[in-house]
């Protein structure tokens, strides 16, 4: 093998990570790298143990790829990896100030970019609604748990993007990740905000939003006309966009992320450093109109359709 890589990441059981692993493994194979993937069950303590054990085995790779279960909580293990002298690439969770001394770069999505694009998308939709004489611009946000690092990045970027428009956030609920929690959170907020009127919904990711849309429909809202929903990540239900129930999403492909990680490793191994310290995956917007035609070129040079790029029920 040209080089060996060890990647620490979440469980393949999670749809997004499942695709990511596929991306990283296939690309590594293409490049002739030997890669080992250690999964943990969304559990920082478990991941810490894994790191220890892998280090204990004493078989050091040429590069570590590090996706901490929790951006902040993974710091201890990151230090341990760094101490071995093997370069570390951080992925998925944007590095903070403390991380920087231990990694040679970052590859992965940008929560802010993703949220900002969603904000812009909603802004356009609002403008169109206004032009058509529509009224009501109240936004309900279906959020990640507020304790989760991605929450503040996402909500702030989204707020920035809609600042100055007619849109106004009137509710923000953080029931939890996933469709079931999205449904529950939205259902409660509908009770609360029904009188004020809900006209737009922002889902911090599409899985949450998918649940939220079910709740809205059950409450009698007509999606797409009464309420306009915008999500991100494309890990929810694709059919909702095709049917026009969800206005759009900003695509974030796990497949891409995996490929990008390998690309950065390749760049580092050949040049000894990265041209850009931070490397983001693109976040194109997808709507009903563009969903059939959207495709992205992967880092292996192939063109991937949205079906292949996204996680969730796509």
């Amino acid at each position, binding site marked *: 093998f040209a080089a060996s890589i060890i990647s620490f990441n979440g469980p*393949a059981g999670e749809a997004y990570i499942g695709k990511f692993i596929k991306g990283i493994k296939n690309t590594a194979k293409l490049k002739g790298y030997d890669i080992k993937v250690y999964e943990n069950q969304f559990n920082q303590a478990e991941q810490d143990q894994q790191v220890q054990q892998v280090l204990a085995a004493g078989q050091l790779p040429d590069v570590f790829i590090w996706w901490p279960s929790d951006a*902040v*909580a993974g710091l201890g293990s990151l230090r341990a990896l760094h101490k071995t002298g093997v370069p570390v690439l951080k992925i998925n969770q944007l590095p903070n100030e403390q991380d920087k001394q231990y990694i040679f770069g970052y590859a992965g999505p940008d929560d802010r970019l993703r949220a900002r694009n969603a904000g812009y998308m909603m802004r356009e939709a609002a403008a169109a609604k206004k032009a058509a004489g529509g009224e009501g611009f109240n936004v309900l946000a279906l959020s990640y*748990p507020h304790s989760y690092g991605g929450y503040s990045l996402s909500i702030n970027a989204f707020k920035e993007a809609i600042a100055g428009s007619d849109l106004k956030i009137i509710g923000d609920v953080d029931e939890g990740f996933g469709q079931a929690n999205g449904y529950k959170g939205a259902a409660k907020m509908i009770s609360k905000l029904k009188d004020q009127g809900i006209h737009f919904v922002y889902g911090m990711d599409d899985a949450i939003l998918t649940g939220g849309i079910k709740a809205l429909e059950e409450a009698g809202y007509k999606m797409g006309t009464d309420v306009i929903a915008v999500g991100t990540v494309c890990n929810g239900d694709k059919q909702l966009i095709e049917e026009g129930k969800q206005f759009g999403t900003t695509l974030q492909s796990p497949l891409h992320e995996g490929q990008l990680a390998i690309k950065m490793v390749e760049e580092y191994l050949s040049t000894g450093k990265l041209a850009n310290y931070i490397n983001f995956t693109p976040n194109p917007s997808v709507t009903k109109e563009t969903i059939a035609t959207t495709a992205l070129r992967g880092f292996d040079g192939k063109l991937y359709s949205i079906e292949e790029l996204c996680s969730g029920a796509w």
Partner: protein
Amino acid sequence: MFEKTKKWLTGNPDLAFAMLLACCVYGYFAITNEYFMTGRTTFAIMERFAVLGLVGLALTLCIIAGEIDLSIGSNAALAAVIVVRFTDSLGAPTALLIAVLISTSIGIIQGYFIAYLRIRAIVLTVGTLMLLRGVALFVAEEKTVMLTDFRIPDFITTKYFYYFSPASILVILVFMLVGFFMSYTRYGREIYAIGGARKEALASGIDLKRPMIIVFAISGFCAGLGGVIIGLRSGTAQALGLQYLLLAGTVAAFIGGVSILGGRGGVIGAIIGTLTVNFLNTGLVFNVTPAFLVQLYLGILLVIVIMFQTGSRIFDQSQKRRQLLSDVDLRRLDLLSRKHKYQKPP
């Protein structure tokens, strides 16, 4: 010597089987993976043991007392959050003390309520499981908390005597203390008594409060210490973390051969059970096994243990019956001969 071993084996079949299982798991990985039987791996296993062992110990004690503490993961998370949050401002020893004290007190309070209300621990702790998560979220201000100074994590993961770290040495000490406590003190015997036969123990004058409070205090202490070790080792802590501890600890306790009926089992079993789980976990990590398969293997391990325990119970029963019948046969011969000799004609 041989006789003694045999007697011990028949007296503690569950423990013997646990040992056998541990050896099998270790042996399997030692043979299939060249790095498994090395000092560094042993160190890693001991590091895992430091946390899981504590939880396994706590749950073993609870199960001996005929109860189960579901709140153990939440309690550990709370301790982790507290210690990480306050180490920077108060220094590690103080923060550590506070965290462990709080966890122990939570255990004491739970034990008190369980004894006072005469309810099953599982009933109360299913509530405190959630309650303590809420408290931990509150303490952590719903964020992941983190140290700024990483000398403490470095210290507690330094190697001593090839295989140990300060953390695992501390845990081994805890094990020895608790083991001594359980088998040689009166209070330990009380715990066995309320687990073996609750009603009888109360009737013989044991005050339920003391053993209950002790058990849950130890459980709280172990959870707290476990949480502190995890928190300080990684330098960070999450209020919603450590949920896996409960399940892993329970599995470890059962694999260690503790009887769910209470009153039987011990610290040795807790050690063996935890080590078995650790061997499996570590071995699977070495073989780069996907996470979901770990659950499957643990499930299978448990099923094997259940099969064995059920089998040994059935065997025991049939053994008892055979013993009874052969006793009867002996007595019959004896009686018949006398009857023949001495029965007066009617």
